[in-house]
């Protein structure tokens, strides 16, 4: 699972959606892998406006990455190739291969296995 994907995920339990604690989810015991992908600066520029920056920073921090930028890069920042390359590496190339995603509201844990997170709920939580 790519780090960017976690920006668009919340707890699958219906009652958690209204709680701010359910987003973002929290990584535990994450094993990372770098998957090299073609650098597409335009793609990065286009998706950055849709990233929830605070959540992205918080999740990257939980994975042990240093803070990149205090606030979301805009206009001129997005012309800086160094920034774009760094975002490309973090958002797209950083893969969470094994580990768990945990809801800060209900505490439910979702397993990540071989790079795929599983959000199927046990019957008592449906």
């Amino acid at each position: 699972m790519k780090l960017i994907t976690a920006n668009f995920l919340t707890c699958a339990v219906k009652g958690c959606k209204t709680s701010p604690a359910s987003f973002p989810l929290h990584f535990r015991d994450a094993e990372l892998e770098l998957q090299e992908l073609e650098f597409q600066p335009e793609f990065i520029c286009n998706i950055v406006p849709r990233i929830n920056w605070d959540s992205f920073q918080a999740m990257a921090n939980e994975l042990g990455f240093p803070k990149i930028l205090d606030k979301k890069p805009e206009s001129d920042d997005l012309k800086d190739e160094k920034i774009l390359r760094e975002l490309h590496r973090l958002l797209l190339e950083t893969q969470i291969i094994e580990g768990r995603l945990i809801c800060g509201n209900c505490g439910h844990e979702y397993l990540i296995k071989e790079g795929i997170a599983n959000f199927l709920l046990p019957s008592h939580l449906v």
Partner: protein
Amino acid sequence: MASLDQSSSTLESREAYEEMHVHEVYQQIASHFSSTRYKPWPIVKQFLTQLTPGSIGLDVGCGNGKYLPVNQNVFIVASDRSENLARIAVNHQPHSVIVADILNLPHPDNFFDFAISIAVVHHLSTPDRRTQAIREILRTLKPPTKENPGGKVLLYAWALEQKSSRRGWDKGDLQDIMVPWVTKESSSDLPKVFHRYYHLYEATELERDITNAGGLVLESGYEKDNWWAIATR
């Protein structure tokens, strides 16, 4: 055609029924199914191609991910109920794939620019569950405002009216059916038959389910034995 048990309708029994007659079958046939699904349907392709670069969307019930290569300028979080299919879909860049249930999607409210769910809602076994599935997708879409038309979803479901197809069903036939999937491991093996549950949609039924789910149908039509509709909230 295998017999259908539609008599019991508790939530647990509907889930168990779909588990046996839909989810488990896709787990078993994943790789053979995938080898037969590679050509994108034209209306789906067009819907995905015209999206603004940088749009973020969902492909709910992505199967082998055959729609993921269509547009690489948008980002798609694809999901499937079958882990085996998700594993096949996972290699399409720049997108991402997770395992999730259409009735309990792990996505925030009011966020996504688009969604597709192609040949999926017809696998839910009651009108109420099909409507809930559509409501769950609509929930994730950006609501329309005065300035912005909001997120759009494209839905496809198998049509009852397909008398020129190899199946030959038509108006008046049973809508809740078991459809055989025949698979052969090798030429010397005996063919193995799996049965998947389908609800065949009749004319205007998809639009009705969307309306009941609180959605607004923008466009709808018929393509290749399927009813389709584009809707917003």
